[in-house]
């Protein structure tokens, strides 16, 4: 298996975390985004949208991080951490629901905040405080729902760590290193959940890769 990506990219980190949780052998191929490698013909044949990551297993080529993690979690269901809710269509539907929540409710404001509060300062650009405030308010409302959910359930989809939690790790990690940290710290169940998921050994391995890159 090959994963083509950039350790600083949230989407790449999402798949890396999954691969480490499953404890499977894979080759990481660094994509030189500074040199525009992700827009080269060769890379576009792996991901026609020219984005990292891209995944290969034999003749199977996948892109979109959340489709890739789903494939890995299913294909290696009997290895490493159980990241799915096997058992019935109903339990799998609950997992799917919380993965959709991450993708459609959490990610849009969270990604905009990462851009304003982490990416822009890193590249010497000016944060748009109005956009940051607007998205902090939106993310706050989403986290209010999470607070309610995590008061009833140890993790988002069920009582064990799953893909639904894993998918949040990269963006949560970036936001915990910004002023948006307060959004998580001020909600006790969310705060406890963040502490537990970011302490997972597989996530530490991903962070080690990030530190080497920076």
């Amino acid at each position, binding site marked *: 298996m090959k994963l083509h990506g950039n350790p600083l990219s949230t989407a790449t980190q999402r798949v890396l975390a999954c691969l480490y949780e499953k404890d499977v052998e894979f080759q990481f191929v660094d994509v030189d985004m500074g040199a525009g490698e992700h827009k080269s013909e060769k890379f576009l044949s792996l991901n*026609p949208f020219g984005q990292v990551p891209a995944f290969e297993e034999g003749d199977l080529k996948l892109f*979109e991080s959340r*489709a890739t993690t789903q*494939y890995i979690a299913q294909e290696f269901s009997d290895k490493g951490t159980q990241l799915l809710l096997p058992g019935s*269509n109903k339990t799998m539907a*609950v997992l799917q629901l919380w993965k959709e929540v991450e993708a*459609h409710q959490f990610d849009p404001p969270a990604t905009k905040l990462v851009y304003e509060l982490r990416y822009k300062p890193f590249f010497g650009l000016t944060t748009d405080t109005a956009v940051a405030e607007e998205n902090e308010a939106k993310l706050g409302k989403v986290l209010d729902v999470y607070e309610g959910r995590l008061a009833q359930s140890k993790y988002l989809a069920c009582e064990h760590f799953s893909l639904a939690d894993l998918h949040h790790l990269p963006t949560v990690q970036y936001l915990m290193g910004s002023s948006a940290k307060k959004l998580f710290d001020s909600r006790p169940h969310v705060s406890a959940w963040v502490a537990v998921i970011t302490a997972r050994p597989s996530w530490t391995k991903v962070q080690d890769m990030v530190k080497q890159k920076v």
Partner: protein
Amino acid sequence: MTIKLYGITMSTCTAKVLACLHEHGAEFELVPVNLQNGEHKQPAFLAKNPFGQIPALEDGHLTLFESRAISAYVAEKFKGSGCDLLRSQNPKEAAVVKTWMEVESQQFSPAISPIFYQSIIVPILYGGTPNQTIIDESSVKLGKVLDVYEKKLNSSKYLAGDFYSLADLHHLTYIYYLMKTPYGKLINERPRVKAWWEDISSRPAFKKVAAGLTLGDKN
């Protein structure tokens, strides 16, 4: 116990699920939600979907929300009888279907929804003026996504392969509304995308749903 779908026929997200239910000939009850009266923000509905959005689905003790999670549940529950929208028996095909479902979710939808919102929702529901800058910027983004589709549809009849799948179905309702606006040209000026749209929108299951997609129709 029958499946209950809470939503309204003219909503893109509710209709996405309706299309999936009809493809499978599934029995269900559509329970209207009074958005004008704010029913979706009341405690009874929030108990079904804490984000206060339609649709929501109940099947016995199971309650679901997020239209794409609901449609995947329906497709899995009612697979068989020649309807296999997830290709779940073949892991590699299933992975490709999921990839193009993510493309709809992460590339297509964020590009088309501002066009839909500005050109249909703003004038019709709010009596406002569309923001042409947003429409123009989104049209450029959507055009780039559809260029990728045009290329992909050169090598396969549908997005995930030579079979209709949930990846195609998830596009139906937004494109249907787009075609009511001048921005339908983004579809029409790409021959393979146009042919794909004409194929998927002519499916009997979708025609049932399209009858309810009445936003913007003059009565």
